């Protein structure tokens, strides 16, 4: 596809590279800064490259953060799997089986996407503290799912609308029950959609702060984000810890983007516009 403007001109590449560099300079700063001593980071002469790589920033940060990385991994993986288990059959049922009341459910999903987190945080805190789910990872997982499930349902419904339903009908004619047809036919053909939604449902709890902040006070259970948030203490900011930690928190998302950029553009466009 040729485009309407200035295609194939050499200065476009130069312009895009410069614009990209400017827009990503904050990220460059944290990346390079995570290898600098605070004195170099905020000194009189600030350089674009560390005079020597303060690898000890990273080793100390990793040592302190490792238990919290484990908590985050556990919570994010469980949220992602739980979300798919709930949302995949539901979106199939809503899109292809057309049950009564499906419009009410779909609209309710859109509405919950509009609600600010505080609408969920306060009641969940009160209810969870009554049934002893505060300070448990399962409580945090359930809370995170209030973000991921509506999002997953919207994305997966849009995805499933475009899949060939004839395959399911064929399987049913061949004698498969509705559940079996779902497992053998629907799940495999919707795998790309499931993977995308699964990854997003991993990244959302991975970056969550508000639920962890309000539901988890026990330091052994705190996820990565909460431990980093708390590093900004009353004695000022320990940048040598905070910057490697911030980079570490971004690693799953950055990996994902670089590995699957085309996928995201397609997925986001489909989910948001339709």
């Amino acid at each position: 596809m040729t485009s309407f403007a200035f295609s194939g001109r050499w200065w476009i590449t130069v312009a895009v590279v410069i614009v990209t560099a400017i827009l990503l300079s904050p990220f460059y700063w944290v990346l390079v800064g995570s290898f600098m001593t605070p004195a170099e980071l905020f000194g009189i002469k600030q350089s674009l490259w560390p005079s020597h790589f303060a690898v000890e920033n990273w080793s100390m940060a990793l040592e302190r953060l490792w238990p919290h990385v484990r908590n985050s991994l556990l919570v994010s993986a469980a949220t992602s799997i739980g979300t798919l288990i709930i949302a995949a059959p539901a979106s199939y049922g809503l899109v292809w089986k057309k049950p009564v009341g499906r419009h009410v459910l779909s609209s309710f999903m859109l509405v919950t996407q509009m609600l600010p987190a505080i609408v969920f945080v306060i009641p969940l805190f009160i209810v969870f503290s009554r049934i002893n789910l505060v300070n448990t990872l399962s409580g945090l997982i359930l809370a995170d799912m209030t973000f991921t499930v509506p999002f997953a349902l919207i994305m997966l419904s849009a995805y499933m609308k475009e899949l060939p339903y004839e395959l399911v009908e064929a399987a049913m004619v061949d004698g498969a029950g509705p559940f079996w047809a779902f497992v053998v036919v629907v799940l495999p053909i919707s795998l790309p959609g499931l993977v995308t939604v699964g990854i997003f449902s991993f990244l959302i709890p991975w970056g969550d702060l508000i639920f962890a902040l309000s539901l988890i006070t026990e330091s052994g259970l705190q996820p990565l984000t909460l431990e980093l948030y708390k590093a900004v203490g009353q004695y000022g900011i320990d940048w040598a810890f905070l910057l490697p930690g911030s980079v570490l928190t971004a690693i799953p998302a950055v990996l994902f983007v670089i590995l699957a950029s085309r996928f995201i553009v397609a997925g986001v466009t489909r989910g948001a516009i339709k």
Partner: protein
Amino acid sequence: MRTNAAYPSRSIPGKARFDASPYLFILPFFIFCLILLLYPVAYSLALSFRQATVETFVSGDMPFNGLTQYQAALADPIFWRALLNTILFAFFSILFQFTIGFLLGLLFQADFPLKNFCLALLLIPWVSPVLTAANIFKGLFNEAGPVNRICHLVGLGPFPWLADPGYAFPATIVANIWIGFPFNFILLYAGMRSIPTDIYEAAKIDGATFWQRVGYITLPVLQPVSVAVLMLGTIYTVKVFDLVWIMTGGGPANGTHLLSTYAYQVGFSLLNFGEAAAIATLMVLLVVLLNLLQLLLQRR
């Protein structure tokens, strides 16, 4: 879609009876909705009419007291400051996110080497956790940080970023623009891609300049996408919490509070859950109002 419509009329032997399977597929989701979505929302609304403070929370009765929480919220000058901040925050964030996203979208209509790589890199601010962005900008706006260094180079400052609400508030907006521009960019980029190129070719032959083509073709054809982007942007920015909570905590002197951070402070620092729930309800009203306003503006 068409095949779905044909489905019920097609007769599969033994399938004439009422088919319960759709409901079974939806059942876990339905239960989840009731317990973890609908119940909390209803609870939050009910809570806004109840006295839910530390004492009543421990005793567990939380008596009904009508609109007292709303009156208390509306009588608080910090609430009005937070409301004004939320509107300004949303307005300036969206204005710049959209402009940057639109210009980038135009730039990326051309084909050039490294295109997909640059596109992927530009998504990083948006997919990274907000905490990362918040800490980055906390560092950049540090009193001895790079922003003041650059200001110094051109003979300005140093400015008390993050130490003075008049500077801290714009600093949080800058950080939020950085987080949100990629979202605007990819949606607008995808929207522009779907415009058929022969319209442009025709306009070009008729002698339309580049900016005329943008103004008379791209913008009008892109309008439905733009409206969707702006509405989603409004929803997202009114929800912003982590960024401001990490960068400033609503301070200094409660000057950078958004409604979200203010509600959180009232709930979890002052332990007045009833009033926090009332502010939360008012936030929902604000989102609805802003979206209606955009729809009305679009109709005209």
